C-alpha cells in the first residue's frame, strides 16, 4: 500500500478523490490493479491495451466489455486502450456512489454501438444480442426481435423519430427502480 501511495503522489491522489466517486482506498486499489495489468513487459507504456483490460475478472463475462473499453478510452487510435485516468473514470462511473446522471450518460454511450449519438434499431438489435448471449438457443427469433424493438421504441421514443436519444434514454432510465444500484464494479482484489 505504501509503495502505491508514493507512486501516485499525494496531490494527485487528492485530486482524483475530488474528481471521482471513489475513496482513497479504492483509488489506491485501482492503481494496484492497474499496475498489475501493466507489470509484465511494458512498464513504460502509458495505456493498457484493450485485451489486457478485458482479461480483468470483473469484465471477463460482461457482454459489453468491448464497448466499455471503447467508451472510456481516450486514445487517438480508437483501439480501446485505457490510461490510468481512463481506468479511474471507468471505475468512478461504475461505483456505487456515482450519480444517476453520470451512470445513464455512460450507459447510453455504451449502448450506442455505432457512436452516432442516438440509439436506433441497429443499436437496439445489437444490444439485445449482447444481452441474450452467444449460444443459439438463447437467441431471439427475428420475429421476436422485431416485436421487441418496436415495443421498446414505442415506449421510449417520445418524439417518435425512430431513435432513442440521450434525454429520452435518461428519462426512461431515471424511472427504473433498479438502475442506480445495478451498476457497481469493484470486486475482487486478490
Amino acid at each position, binding site marked *: 500500500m505504501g509503495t502505491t501511495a508514493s507512486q501516485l503522489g499525494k496531490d494527485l491522489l487528492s*485530486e482524483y*478523490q*475530488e*474528481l*471521482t*466517486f471513489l*475513496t*482513497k482506498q479504492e483509488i489506491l486499489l485501482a492503481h494496484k490493479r492497474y499496475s498489475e495489468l501493466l507489470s509484465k513487459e511494458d512498464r513504460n507504456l*502509458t*495505456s493498457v491495451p484493450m485485451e489486457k483490460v478485458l482479461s480483468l*475478472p*470483473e469484465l*471477463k*463475462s*460482461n*457482454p459489453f466489455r468491448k464497448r466499455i473499453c471503447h467508451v472510456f478510452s*481516450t*486514445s487517438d487510435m480508437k483501439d480501446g486502450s485505457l*490510461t490510468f*485516468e481512463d481506468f479511474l*473514470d471507468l471505475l468512478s462511473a461504475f461505483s456505487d456512489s456515482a*450519480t444517476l*446522471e*453520470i451512470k445513464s450518460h*455512460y450507459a447510453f454511450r455504451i*449502448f450506442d454501438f455505432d457512436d452516432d449519438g442516438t440509439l436506433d434499431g441497429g443499436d*437496439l438489435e445489437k444490444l*439485445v444480442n449482447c*444481452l*441474450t*448471449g452467444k*449460444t443459439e438457443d*438463447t*437467441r*431471439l427469433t427475428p420475429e*421476436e426481435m422485431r*416485436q*421487441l424493438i418496436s*415495443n*421498446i421504441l414505442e*415506449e*421510449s421514443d*417520445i*418524439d417518435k423519430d425512430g431513435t432513442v436519444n440521450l434525454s429520452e434514454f435518461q428519462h*426512461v*432510465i431515471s*424511472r*427504473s*427502480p*433498479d*438502475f*442506480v*444500484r*445495478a*451498476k*457497481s*464494479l469493484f*470486486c*475482487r*482484489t486478490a
Partner: protein
Amino acid sequence: MTTAMSLFFVFTADEEDTVIDSDGRQERAKEKERKKERDRKRRRNVARRASSARKEGKELEDRPGREERRGRKKRDKEGKGKGGEDERQEEVKNDTVAKTQKNFSNENTRKLEQKEIEVVGEEDGDTEEKRKNGRPEKGGKKEDNGRGETVEKKQKKKRVETSAEHESSEEEEDEEEKVGEEKPEVLSPEELEKLKEEVDERKKLISTLRGKPWPMRKKLLTLRESHEFVEKYEGALGKGKSRKLYAYKVMMLKKWMKFQRDFENFKTACVPWEMKIKEIESHFGSSVASYFIFLRWMYGINMILFGLTFGLVMVPEALMGRPYGSMPRKTVPRADEANAMDFAVLWDFGGYAQYSVLFYGYYNSQRAIGWLKFRMPLSYFLVGVGTVAYSYMVVIRTMARNANEDGGGDNNSFNFSWKMFTSWDYLIGNPETADNKFASITTSFKEAILEEQESRKDDNIHLTRFLRVLANFLVLCCLAGSGYLIYFVVRRSQKFALEGLESHSWWERNEVNMVMSLLGMFCPMLFDVISALENYHPRIALQWQLGRIFALFLGNLYTFIIALMDEINLKREEEEVLKLNMTIWEASLYNGTMGANSTAPPITVHPADIPRGPCWETMVGQEFVRLIVSDTMTTYITLLIGDFLRAVLVRFLNYCWCWDLEAGFPSYSEFDVSGNVLGLIFNQGMIWMGAFYAPCLPALNVLRLHVSMYLQCWAVMCCNVPQERVFKASGSNNFYMAMLLVILFLSTLPAIYTIVTIPPSFDCGPFSGKSRMFDVIQETLESDFPAWFGKVFSYASNPGLVLPFLLLMVLAIYYLQSTSKSYKQANLELKKKLQTQNEENKKKTKMAALKAAMDLEEAQKARSEAPRQQRKNNASQQSYTGEKNTVTGHLVSSFVFVYPPAPRGHRIPGPLPGNQWQPAPSVQRVPNSQRHRV
C-alpha cells in the same frame, strides 16, 4: 503523459499569452521599484475590464482556452519538479525561453501602451491587437480571421487574465507593504461582488466536477485551473482586516473539507466485510449479495441493541448490584444446587445461567445501586422501551430512504425498455452466472413478448382460477395444521414440565423447538410444490411464496406465544399459592426460633433455602433464548448437511456413479435468498420479543450473526451454485423491510401486552413489589423530580389531553397522505400534458412541413413564370450584368424564400439568370425557415 502533452499542443492556439505571463513576471521581478505606481493604475483598469468582459458572458467559450493554458503551466512546473518526464516537456521549456527573449523587446512597448490604455480606456482591445500584430506568428492568423469582433473580445479577455495574474503574484510578493493603502481603492464594491460571484461559480464547478461525464484529463485541468483561480481571487475579496479573516476562513474551510474527505475514507474503511461481500457479488450477482448486506445491517442494529442492554443494564447490575448469593433471587435454590453446573442444565439455560445477569429474575428491585446511585429499575425499563423505539426508528428511516431511491417510478410504462436497458447485472464476474443471466434475460424477453400478445386474449381463465383457489386452500390447510401441531406440542411440554423434566427423554424436553424448526424447514418446500399449481409469473410467485412462509412463521410464533401465555397464567396461580405458603413458612420459622430462645436473634436462613416464586418473566426469557439457540443450531446444521455434505457427495461420488450427479438430480444447492432473509427477519422478531425478559438476547444474536456471516460466506463460495433465476435484489428490498416492520410491530405487541397487563412477580426482577412494571416511571417522577414536574406530567397524561393529541396526529397523517396523493395526481397530469404537447408539436411540425411544401410549389411555379416574362423584357440587359447577378441573385433568392408568400418582384432588382440550378438550395431552405417560424 506523452499523448496528453501532444494533445495540449494541438489545443493551445494561444501560447503567446502564456509566455507573456511568465516573462512578464520575470521582468517585474527585476523592475520592482517602478512597478508599484503603474500597478495601482492598471489594477483599476483590470477590474473594470474584467467586469465588462464578464458582462459579455464570454466565459464559457473562453474557459477551455484558459484551462489549457493554466494546465500547461502547471504541468511545466511539475515537470521541473519531477524531472525527466518526457521530451515534450523539454521542448516546452525551450519554447518558453525562446519566446521570452523574443518578447523581451515587446515588453517596453507594452508598458507604454499600458499607460495609453489607462487614458484611452476602452480602446485597449485595438492597442493590444496592434501589439500582437507586431509579432509574425500571430499576425498571420489574425488576418485569416478577418479581425472579427469575437476575436477582439477574446483578446481583451485574455489580457484581463494575464494582468490579473500579475496582480495577484505581486500581492503575494509584497503584501505587507501594500495592505491598507492600496487595496481599498483598487476594487469597487460591485466589482468585488462580481468577482465573488465568479469565485462562487468556480467553487460550484469544483464541487460538481465529479458528476460531469468528461474524460479525466479535462476534469483534471478544469479542477486545477479553477482551484488556482479561486485561490488567487479569494484573497482579493476582503479588505484590510477582514481580508485576513477571510483568508483564515477559506483556509479553515479547506481543512474542514479535507477532514470530511478523510473521515469519509475512514468510514468506508470501517465497514466490515466489504470485500467479502464484493467477492460474493462478483460471483453470484447482486441478489445474493443483498442478503449479506442485509445481514450486515442487522448485525449493526444488534450491535447497538447489545450496547444498550450490556452497557446500561447488565454491566451496572453485575458491578454495582448486590453480589451473587446475597439474596434468594440471586441464588440457585437448594434443590437444584447439585446439578446447577452440569453442562446439560447450562445448555438449557437453567442452573447458574438462570440465576445470573442474563435473565430478568436476577435483577434487584433496589431503587438506586452503587456509589453512582444508578437507578437500576428505571434504566431497565427505559432500555426495554428504547430498544423497541430505536428499532422502529431505524427500520422506518431505512424504508423511507429506500422508497426515495425508488423514486416512486410508475410501475410498467417502460416495461420493455427497462428490461432492455437495466437488466444486465454489472456485478456479475463469473461466467457461469453470466450464462444463467443470459438465459434469464432471454426468457424474460420472451415472456414479456408473450404477455404482450396474450394480454388481449386470456383463455382458460377458469382453470387457472380454480387451481389458484385450490393452491391457497392447500396452503391454508398446511398453516392450520402446523399451528395446531405447535399448540399441541407446547401443551404437552407443559404437562411434562409439571411432571418434572428429569423423567423424560431429550426429545420430549426439546420437542417444541425441534417441531418449530422442522416445520420451518419443510413447510416452505411444500409451499413451493403447491405454488407450481398456480402458474404465476416468477416474480409474483416469489412474493406469494414469501408471503406464505411469512404467514407460517408468524402463525407458529403466535401459537408459541399463546401457549406461553397459558404457562404464564399457570405460573401466576402457582405464585399465589406460594405466597400463602410463604407466610405460613415464615410464621413457622419465627415460631420455631421464638420457642428456642426468647432473646430473638435475627433469623438467618441461607438464601438458597428460602422458598421462592416461579418467576414467570425468567421463564419467558428462557423460552426465547432456547428458541434462538435451537434455531441457530438448526440453521447451521442444515447449512452443513444440506449444502456442504451434499456438495461433497456430489463432487466426489460423481466419479463413480451411473448418472451425472452435477447436472442431474441432486446437483449443487442454490443459495436461497428469500428463505434466508425470512429466517433472519424472524430471528430478529424473536429477539425483539424476548429482549425485555432476557437482556442477554441481543448479545446472543450478535454472536449468531457474526458466526453466520463467516459460515454462510464460506458455504456460498465453496458449495453453492449461482441461481438459475438471477433476479435483481433492489426491487424487493423494501418488501423485506416492510416484512421486518410488520414483524417488529407484531413482536412488540405481546411484549407490551405482558408489560402493561400482567403484574410482575413478587420476589424477582427489578420491578418486584410493584403492581405494574411501568409504575417505575411514576415512582421516579415522584421521588427524583420536583413536584411541579410530576404535576405537569400528570396533566399531560390526562386523557383529556392525550386524546386530542392523538386526534391531531391522525389528522396530520391524513393531511400528509392526501397531499402526497395530490402530488402524485399532479405528476400524472404533468406527464399527460407533456405527452399531449409532444403530440401537438409533432402535428404542428407535420403541418408546417406540408404547408412549406405547398408554399414551395407555389413559389416554384411563380418563379418559373416570372423569369419567363422578365426574360422577354430584359433579354438585352442580361448580356452585360451576367456574371455579377449570378452571385447576388442566388444570395437574394435565398432571402426571399424566408418569406415565400411575398411577391418576388419587389425584392429582386434584376433578372435571375441562374434559374436552372437555383431550386436545389431553396428546396432545403424552405422547410427549415418555416419550422423556425412555427
